[in-house]
């Protein structure tokens, strides 16, 4: 996994609450069997009015937000479907972090597995970042996971909290499957004690 330590980048404001993963990556693009290549479909139904024709009213199509790598959005970001494709699409498009006042659980979980940061600030702080991103030209923010702080050059700074273990994994780019496998002995002991239910054991000629 890609490590996340400190990132500075342009901020794009998506002034909507309850942005669901169906919007982040519509289902017609979930059929790929790779993890890559989802960026071009990010927010597809909002970004394009018709097949391939950009919607001039959508924020990510404004030239002033070109190259943005931090997204700021309203509460309950990433609700709905568990599709990790949403995180893949945001990352592939160039985003490294999303700032919001709340995130849906599965989305937040998926983010941590992809070196993608969900930055949780208060409603007020989110509104402030939103206002600056809308008002200040080339507005940049620094997301600092080492200090658990988001700050800009105009005097804004806010602390955010991240689960200690998640932070550790993100800072070091750790693969958490490897970490779980360090507990091989305990897993094996648990399995020895519980065994596979009889009904599941006989899989006949599977496959």
């Amino acid at each position, binding site marked *: 996994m890609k490590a996340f330590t400190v990132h500075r980048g342009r901020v794009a404001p998506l002034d909507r609450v309850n942005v669901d993963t*169906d*919007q982040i990556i519509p289902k017609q693009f979930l059929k790929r*069997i790779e993890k890559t290549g989802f960026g071009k479909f990010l927010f597809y139904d909002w970004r394009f009015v018709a097949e391939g024709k950009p919607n001039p009213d959508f924020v990510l199509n404004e030239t002033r937000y070109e190259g943005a790598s931090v997204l700021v959005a309203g509460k309950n970001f990433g609700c709905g*479907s*568990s599709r990790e494709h949403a995180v893949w699409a945001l990352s592939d498009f160039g985003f490294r972090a999303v700032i919001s006042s709340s995130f849906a659980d599965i989305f937040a979980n998926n983010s941590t*597995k992809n070196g993608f940061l969900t930055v949780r600030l208060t409603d007020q702080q989110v509104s402030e970042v939103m206002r600056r991103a809308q008002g200040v030209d080339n507005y940049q923010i620094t997301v600092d996971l080492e200090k658990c702080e988001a700050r800009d050059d105009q005097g804004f700074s806010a602390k955010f909290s991240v689960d200690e273990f998640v932070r550790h994994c993100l800072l070091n780019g750790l693969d958490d499957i490897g970490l*779980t496998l360090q507990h091989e002995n305990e897993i094996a002991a648990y399995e020895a004690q519980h065994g596979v239910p009889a009904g599941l054991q006989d899989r006949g000629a599977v496959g």
Partner: protein
Amino acid sequence: MGAGRTLFEKIWVAHLVATPAGRSPILYIDLHLVHEVTSPQAFDGLRSAGRGVRQPARTVATVDHNVPTEPRGSPITDLIAARQIAALQANCKEFGIRLFDMDAPEQGIVHVIGPELGLTQPGMTIVCGDSHTSTHGAFGALAFGIGTSEVEHVLATQCLAQQKPKTMKIDVHGQLGLGVMAKDLALGIIGHIGTDGATGHVIEYAGPAVRALSMEGRMTLCNMSIEAGARAGMVAPDETTIAYVKGRRFAPTGGDWEKAVERWRSLPTDQGAAFDKVVEIDAAQLCPFVTWGTNPGMVAPVTGRVPEVNGLQEGERRAAELALQYMALEPGRRIEDIKIDRVFIGSCTNSRIEDLRAAARVAKGHRVNTQVRAMVVPGSQTVKRAAEQEGLDRVFLDAGFEWRESGCSMCLGMNPDILQPGERCASTSNRNFEGRQGRGGRTHLVSPMMAAAAAIAGHFTDIRNWKFH
């Protein structure tokens, strides 16, 4: 020990494999359900790390999201979907995983077949790369949706590193009225607590109105937990649960059954156990609901109107305005005056035999409105066969509904069943997000009875005034 423990805590503790200091606890997973859309990248990850599937016997796969609902045997015309299905077939073969494939008599939506095959049992931890895994909580299991990285994690380790969620009790007093279904209870709750009302929590549904629900009703209710932001939803196992599981294909037998039942009876939340949050609902206050917006929390009673947006808070008002614009509705419009073009009866929320019986009872002796195209998509082949044995297919066909093969179908429109731009649909599924059923499509969530009635009337209508034949 102080106060007692909740159902959730009992299952959580029983599945802790390790609690490493400063890290998330590691939880053992009893059953891992897999489908074609969220798994290919996980299997690829395993291969590139040189890992295998730790417990293929605890892993069960089916195809549901992509499969066409035309008669089986017709070729899959969508080549990318076909490729995804082929990938699952190859992965199951390579790793020795049981797959209920396209042509299997057990095929169906993953959350329908788990319970009906008896794979889903009380006290289990169950995961699947799909947010509606919460459905299985109806059995008093801890069941939640995971992303693809976590699918890979479970394949490789049969465990998940999980932060412990908080608990929320939703106590539903009284009794649901006639014509008010589990779906209405779910919509009523989400309308009340909001689509992020249970974020970070596992819900336990309790109270007489929940106890009175059938297993099908409990599944509908738990299914929609994720739409309130919950990690999972649960109902404590009782005699209804035990009677449902008994004799199913993967249910324990003989002495194992006796032992299992004894264990299950010890699962319900102890008297006096504390929850982080408690919500009280009066079932008598609920009625048939219809969503008017673009998230499942935007609901109104069928007898009500599209709400005014002026009174709402800033962010919510903007969201409501955008939703109304998308839905082509204006505040104050009577819900019963909203005309529809399509009806979809199906999805892991409402495609079980009881749902189809309820819808068929409404449809019987009526005709689908000439302006409406209505389809019924059973949740599984097993449901489909049972319905046909009871003659429900005839009732639907005679009334002018389409009768299709099982799958997710128009719940998310990954197969050819989609809405055209601007089409308005009464749907028994769980999400009314923009474009969910097809770009520009407008979805209203309702119960199976309300959907059937809308198909016939051509607009929403209060099922409590229905003329049953």
